[in-house]
C-alpha cells in the first residue's frame, strides 16, 4: 500500500461554483490538485447544427442563447455576417444604438461576474450589490426590447425599432461609477481578498497566447489585444485600453472593474450622440427568402468573455451549409487543465471563477 493515495473528485456537473454544468475531474492528494480534466457538453444544444436546418431569420432569435449573459454580441455577429454579404453600410445612428446596447450588455455581464466570483470566494454581499445594478440594466432592456436576457433586438441591416427611454440609460451611467467605487471599497483592497487572489492562477502571456485566450483574461496578462480598437462599429468612439500586467486572479478582477468604467465612458459618448440624433432611418434587408451569395463569411467581435466570431459557408441557399461559432469561454475551460495543476482546491475555485467561464457558451 502506498503512503499517500490519490483521491478522484468529480467537481460538478452539479456543483454550486461551476457556473452551470461543467464537470472537472480532479485528482487530489490531500487538497492539492495533481491533474484536472474538464468534461464539457452537458449543455450542448446543437447551436451549429441547428443553423443548417433554419433560415437566417429563423436562426437569429436563437443565437442570443449562446451566451445568455451577453446575448447582444451573438446576434450582432449573425447580423454582421448577413450585412457583410449584402454589403450594407450601417447608418451612424444604428451604429451608436448597437454600441450602446453592446456596452450595456457587457457591463451587465461583468457585474454578474463580479458577484459570482466573490460568491465563489465566500463573500455573499457583493453578489446582491452587483445584482442590484444589473437589475437596472435588465429593466432598461426589458423596457426597450421586451426581454430581459434574450433581446433579439438587432436585425439584418439595423435594429428592430428606434431607441427609446434614453433617460433610463442616463440614470444608469450616472449611478454606475459610484457603485463601482463602492465595490472597490469593500473588495479590491480587502486583505483576505488580496490573499486569495493576488499571485494565484498566474497566467503567463505565452501560455495565454498558446491556449488562444482572448478578452479580459489576455489583457490582464499584459497584451493589448482589443478588437474594439479596429471594429468599424466603434469607429469614432474614444476609449482607453485596459491592460494590466498582474497575470493573476486579482489582475483579472481589476481589469473587469476597469473595463466596466471604460464601457460607461463609451455609453456616455453614444448617449450624447443619440440624444441629438434624428429619427431612425435604416435600410433593412428583407429577411424573407434571404439567400446568402455563395462564399465564406467571417465576422468577429470583442465579447465580454473574449473574442467571439462566426464563420458561415454558404452555397447560395437560404440556409448556411456550415456555421461555426468561436467563443471565449471554450478556450478558458481548456486552460483549466494547465492552470489548476499544483493548486489547492479552494484556490482552484478562485482561479476557475476568475476566468469567467460560462457553460452555454462552451457547449453551444
Amino acid at each position, binding site marked *: 500500500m502506498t503512503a499517500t493515495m490519490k*483521491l478522484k*473528485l468529480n467537481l460538478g456537473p452539479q*456543483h*454550486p*461554483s461551476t457556473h452551470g454544468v461543467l464537470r472537472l475531474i480532479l485528482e487530489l492528494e*490531500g*487538497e492539492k490538485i495533481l491533474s484536472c480534466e474538464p468534461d464539457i457538453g452537458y449543455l450542448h444544444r446543437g447551436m451549429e447544427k441547428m443553423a443548417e436546418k433554419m433560415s437566417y431569420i429563423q436562426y437569429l432569435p436563437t443565437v442570443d442563447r449562446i451566451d445568455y449573459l451577453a446575448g447582444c454580441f451573438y446576434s450582432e455577429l449573425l447580423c454582421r455576417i448577413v450585412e457583410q454579404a449584402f454589403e450594407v453600410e450601417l447608418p451612424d445612428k444604428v451604429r451608436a444604438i448597437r454600441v450602446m446596447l453592446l456596452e450595456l450588455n457587457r457591463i451587465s455581464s461583468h457585474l454578474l461576474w463580479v458577484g459570482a466570483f*466573490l*460568491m*465563489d*470566494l*465566500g*463573500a*455573499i*454581499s457583493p*453578489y*446582491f*450589490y452587483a445584482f*442590484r445594478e444589473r437589475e437596472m440594466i435588465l429593466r432598461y432592456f426589458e423596457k426597450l426590447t421586451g426581454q430581459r436576457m434574450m433581446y433579439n433586438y438587432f436585425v439584418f441591416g439595423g435594429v428592430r425599432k428606434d431607441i427609446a427611454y434614453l433617460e433610463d440609460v442616463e440614470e444608469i451611467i450616472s449611478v454606475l461609477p459610484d457603485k463601482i467605487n463602492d465595490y472597490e471599497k*469593500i473588495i479590491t483592497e*480587502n486583505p*483576505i*481578498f488580496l*490573499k*486569495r487572489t493576488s499571485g494565484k492562477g498566474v497566467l503567463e502571456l505565452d501560455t495565454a497566447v498558446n491556449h488562444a485566450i482572448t478578452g479580459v483574461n489576455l489583457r490582464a496578462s499584459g497584451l493589448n489585444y482589443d478588437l474594439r480598437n479596429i471594429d468599424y462599429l466603434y469607429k469614432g468612439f474614444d476609449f482607453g485600453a485596459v491592460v494590466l500586467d498582474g497575470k493573476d486572479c486579482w489582475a483579472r478582477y481589476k481589469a473587469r472593474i476597469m473595463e466596466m468604467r471604460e464601457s460607461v465612458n463609451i455609453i456616455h459618448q453614444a448617449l450624447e450622440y443619440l440624444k441629438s440624433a434624428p429619427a431612425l432611418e435604416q435600410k433593412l434587408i428583407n429577411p424573407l427568402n434571404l439567400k446568402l451569395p455563395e462564399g465564406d463569411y467571417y465576422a468577429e467581435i470583442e465579447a465580454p468573455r473574449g473574442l467571439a466570431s462566426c464563420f458561415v459557408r454558404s452555397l447560395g441557399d437560404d440556409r448556411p451549409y456550415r456555421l461555426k461559432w468561436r467563443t471565449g469561454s471554450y478556450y478558458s475551460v481548456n486552460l483549466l487543465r494547465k492552470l489548476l495543476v499544483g493548486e*489547492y*482546491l*479552494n*484556490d482552484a*475555485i478562485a482561479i476557475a471563477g476568475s476566468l469567467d467561464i460560462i457553460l452555454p457558451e462552451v457547449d453551444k
Partner: protein
Amino acid sequence: MNYLYFLYIEFLLRHNIPKLFGDITFYIIPFCVIAAALIVVVLVLVLAERKLLGFFTQRKGPNRVGFWGVLQTLADAFKLLCKENITPKSVDRFLFNLAPIIIFIPVMTALGIIPYSAEFTFVNTQTNVILYLILAAFPVISIFLAGWASNNKYSLLGAMRSISQVLSYELPITFVVLSIAVLSSSMNLTGITMAQFSKWGFFGWFMFPCVLGFIIMFISILAELNRCPFDLPEAESELVCGYNTEYSGMRFALFYLGEYAMMFANSMFIAVLFLGGYLSPFGKYLFNSSFLIYFEQAFWLFLKAGIILFVMIWIRATLPRLAAFDLLKFSWVYLLPLSIINLFIAVLIKMGELA
C-alpha cells in the same frame, strides 16, 4: 441555585416525596429547561441572522410567514421535521446516525455551565472554565464522524479541514483563557465574572487589560464555530455543503441546531470572560429587589452576547473566505505567539496588582 434547590425540595416535601428523589431529579430539570430554551434561542437566532443578512445585502429577508416573517424559522423547522430522512446506501449506518446526536450533547452541557445570573448556574464546579473548553471543542468529533461515515468525498474534505482548523485554533483560545484565569485568580466562570466587578462599571471588564486577548479570542471562536470567514468545512462554493452534504431532514436540523446553539453559547462565553458576564455596565443595577436583579443580570448577559452575535453576522456579510492554508498559517504564525504575549501581559498586570 441553592435558592431554587430549597424551593424545589420544600415543594416535594410538602407532597410527601422523599428528599432523595429531589436530589436526583433536581439536576435533570435544568437540562429540560435548557433544551426548551435552546430551541427558542436558535429559532430567534436564525431569524435574526437571515433578517440581518437581508438588511446588509439590501434585501428584505424572510417576510411572509407570520407578522414580519417571525414564524419563518418555525416553518423551516417544521418542514425539516416532515422531510424524509435519506440514508445513502454506502454510509456507515451506525456512525452516520450517531454524529448528529453527538453534536448536541456538548452544546447542552456547555449551556449549563454559563452563569446566567449570580445564582443561576446549573453546573457550578470550581474549574468549569476547563470543562467548557473541552465541551466547546467536542463538536469536532461529531463533524469528523459525519464526514467519515457519509462516505462522500466532499464530506471527508470538510471534516479534514474542520479538524485541522479546530486543532490549530484551540491553542490560542486556551492561552487566552489562561490569561483571564491569571487576572481573576479563578477558574470558575462566576468567579471570573465577579472579578470584573468594579464601581466604575464597565472599566473593570477584562476587555481593557486584555484587549489583545479579546481580539484573539473572538477570531478563534469564529474559527472554532466554522463561521465566516473561517467557514471552510462547509464552504458552499467549494465543498457543496461540507460534512453535512449527505444529511437531510431531522438529522440535518440537529446539525443546524447544534451549530447555532454553540454559536450562542460561545458568544456568552466571550461575554463572561471579557465583558463582565451578567454584571451591569453601569456599576449598579437598575432594580433594587433581589428577585428582579436576577432577571436584569440575565438581560445584560444576553445583551452582550447579542452584540457579539451581531458582529459575527456582520462579518459574515462582509468578508470573503480564507484559504485553508492561510487559515492554519494565521493561527500558528500570528495568533499563537500573540496569545502567549497576551498571557505575559496578564501576568505582569497581576504582579503589579499584588505588589
